[in-house]
């Protein structure tokens, strides 16, 4: 075992570099071969796209925004107080009618948000396709992902096109945030 320890140490730390006997030089060659094996492994990797896909999935599975149990235990007392205060404030504002809309037909507008919109439909694929088609007519590319039966769409619409895009999406009941960042997920509606 002591031999193995020494061998491991040499292999990981290149301790035998320089004036070493042949066996040690062979270990150098082995280290080179191992590095080469790792680096020569061919793999298609589009980091940015795959990271976006991962975030889409994490959001879909409610894993991005929800604190873990350990964090929740630490912050729960504060959160509970904050929740009660916020609830009270919302109730008061709601009752005051301060934000009641004067024009009920206006398309919904989300301001400064990159929140994920989730819409349940019978056919997520077709619904997503409709959005993609409408955006394509405006020359706007949309990134599309699938997770199970859900279909997600993300795109950032240039400021100049936001109003036109909003008009195109309104009939589909899709709200476009004021910053033009559309993050939409169609889920299959339960029967």
């Amino acid at each position: 075992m002591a031999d193995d320890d020494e061998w491991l140490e040499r292999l990981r730390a290149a301790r035998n570099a320089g004036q070493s006997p042949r066996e040690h030089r062979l270990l150098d060659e082995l280290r080179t071969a191992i590095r080469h094996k790792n680096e020569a492994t061919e793999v298609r990797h589009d980091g940015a796209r795959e990271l976006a896909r991962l975030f889409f999935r994490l959001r879909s599975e409610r894993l991005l925004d929800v604190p873990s149990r350990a964090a929740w235990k630490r912050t729960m007392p504060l959160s509970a107080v904050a929740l009660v205060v916020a609830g009270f404030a919302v109730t008061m504002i709601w009752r005051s009618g301060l934000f009641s809309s004067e024009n009920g037909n206006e398309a919904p507008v989300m301001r400064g948000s990159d929140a994920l919109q989730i819409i349940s439909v019978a056919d997520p694929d077709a619904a997503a396709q409709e959005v993609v088609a409408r955006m394509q007519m405006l020359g706007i590319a949309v990134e599309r992902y699938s997770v199970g039966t859900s279909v997600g769409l993300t795109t950032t619409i240039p400021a100049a096109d936001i109003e036109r895009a909003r008009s195109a999406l309104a009939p589909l009941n899709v709200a476009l945030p004021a910053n033009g960042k559309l993050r939409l997920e169609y889920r299959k509606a339960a029967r």
Partner: protein
Amino acid sequence: MARQPHHDSNLIALLRAGGKPRQAAVTQLFERYALEFKRYFRRHGATDEQAADLLQDTFVKIVQSADSFEGTGSLEAWLWAIARNTLMSEFRTRKPDVALDALEPEQADGIVTSFGDAGTNPAVADCVKRSFDAFARRYAEFAEVLIRVVVDGWEYAELATFRACSYGAAREYLSQCRKHLADFVAPCLEIAEGR
């Protein structure tokens, strides 16, 4: 491997926090490990598409399991253990093209068997490279461990975490690995000695 326990515990805290901190931690970990994990999956027979899916599954499990990291060992080895478990789960549900250390024996083909000194002898380098490739085809998991030793500087502790075994079992595992590798590399030693 540069040990960064401070940085590691920060990353875990961010992962546990949720929201933007979690997003930042996932981004950091993804940038650091995604390519290596995919290489690992590809070396075990996954296609590019399967490797991409396994990568997603691995990171979902990392987020889900953030609470279970105790902070006593290496975060890196813990992440690799999750990648390995994800791969093994996939193997259980789908017949793999290559199983972890369960392939048919295969000899190093085309090994050059003459030449002299090992110092700067390209024949020896070529022999070792071919031998290790053959070894990796025969013992995929052994080879993977050696890659982590050389590339990331793993020791027994990381190996134990990766394989979910005891420290002693990790030592025995590496000992076996070394013995099997020696059989493959033996012809190269002969080349180096000019036999």
